């Protein structure tokens, strides 16, 4: 099952992947995303860019959290809340698809 996820609750077991109708580019460590559907563009800072890079392939929220905790000095709980909040913002803008599990 797959959804753009606008109204879906994202949990640590959710699997998230960058949506198809967007393009993105590195901008000196940051990331710019352009929605080809709406023409709107968005800027991500370095941490957001790191998460975005992980979303090139379907990735569990848990794995994103682990990658960030390994890389930055941050409490796992705080990291999880921030990641879920960030992903929810991406989902509202239909920049990511949310799945229940990685398709075999």
């Amino acid at each position: 099952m797959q959804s753009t996820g606008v109204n879906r609750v994202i949990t640590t077991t959710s699997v998230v992947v960058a949506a198809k109708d967007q393009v993105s580019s590195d901008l000196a460590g940051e990331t710019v995303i352009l929605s080809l559907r709406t023409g709107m563009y968005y800027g991500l800072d370095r941490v957001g860019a790191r998460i975005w890079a992980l979303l090139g392939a379907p990735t569990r929220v848990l794995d994103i959290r682990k990658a960030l905790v390994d890389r930055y000095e941050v409490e796992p709980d705080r990291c999880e809340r921030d990641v879920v909040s960030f992903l929810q913002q991406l989902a509202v803008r239909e920049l990511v698809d949310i799945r229940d599990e990685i398709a075999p």
Partner: protein
Amino acid sequence: MRRRRSTASETADLLLTTLRLHADVDVAALRKRWAASSPAGLATLTEYEGCVLWLHQRLRELCIFDAVPAAFAEWLSQRAHFLVARNLLVDAQRDDLVQILNELRVPHVLLKGSARRLIADRYPYADARSTSDVDVLLPGNTALPTWQCLRAAGFEPASASPTTYDGHFHLPPLRNGRAVAVELHTSTSTFVPAPVAWTRFAGTAQAATCAGGPTRIPGATELLWHAITHAPLPHPFAFRMRLFQDAAVVCAAGAEVDWGEIAMRLTTDELPHRALARRWLGTAAQLGALPDAASPLRPLPTPDLSKILSWRLGVCRLLDTRGLRPPRPVWGRHPVSRVRRLLLDQAAQVELKLPSTLSPPGTPSARHIGRGVAAGAARVCYQAWRLFSHP
């Protein structure tokens, strides 16, 4: 006690030093200079010069972005995000076009921004410039059938009068639902026959890959040569950073350019303004450093780019009452925009000894005289400034 802020001359030199693609950069000194710089007029200047992405990337890569005065840094960052988003749209159009050309089995070589966006790994900073459309070179005999295939696929002529392109070196631009024009070229210049252009570009093209599939980009010699021929000489705005960048990145990369071929072409009728083209290349080379192998070109004239930028920044400051953001668009028709461009253009004409820009045919005589008087006044302003600041 307040610290002295930098003058227009110092800030212009700082901009130039930062943009130069030389390896021997004193990063610590640059950091100090940016921290003490006055950004007044700099937003307008970088917009005019078309070097927003270049400056943004340079400051980031030298790790001195945090030393830039906050308001200018914020403007630069926002503007860079916008331009990158715009480039992404152009890239998406390029990818779609490459996919179609591959499906049609039409050989092609990407040109200009579309190509340069794919080669930053070989030519650092080649992609750090804005791109507005997709240009692609095709063999002369395939251009029209391909244009018609694109029409059948939903592309429409972007111009209301496609017949004005009869005999031109590219077919009428096409657009689909995306606001990015596609231009199918048969040559890169009015002065180069289509078969010659195709032989040159296809024979030396480099392989590249985009989301649309495999494609080709020009080799180093043609990249540099196209940068020279694409500069709109003898117009003063040919002497802007955005246009120099296309040549500077090739020089700076130490790419395998056939310098003898470039030197030979600089003596042919392919360039209607040969002496000016040498001056243009000499200016661009200051930003990228010519390698030793470029000896067939030497000596190249090297105009004082710092002085030109210094005047331009002074004008931008003078007409930029808020001190940071452009009060009027650089390229707009507002009187302030036009006065600014007049002052910038006429100074370049004096400094670079460019021929006068004539009024278009059919201009009423009163307007022609008015333009002449305004241009003369702008030149007097520049001469007076030069006498005062660079005696």
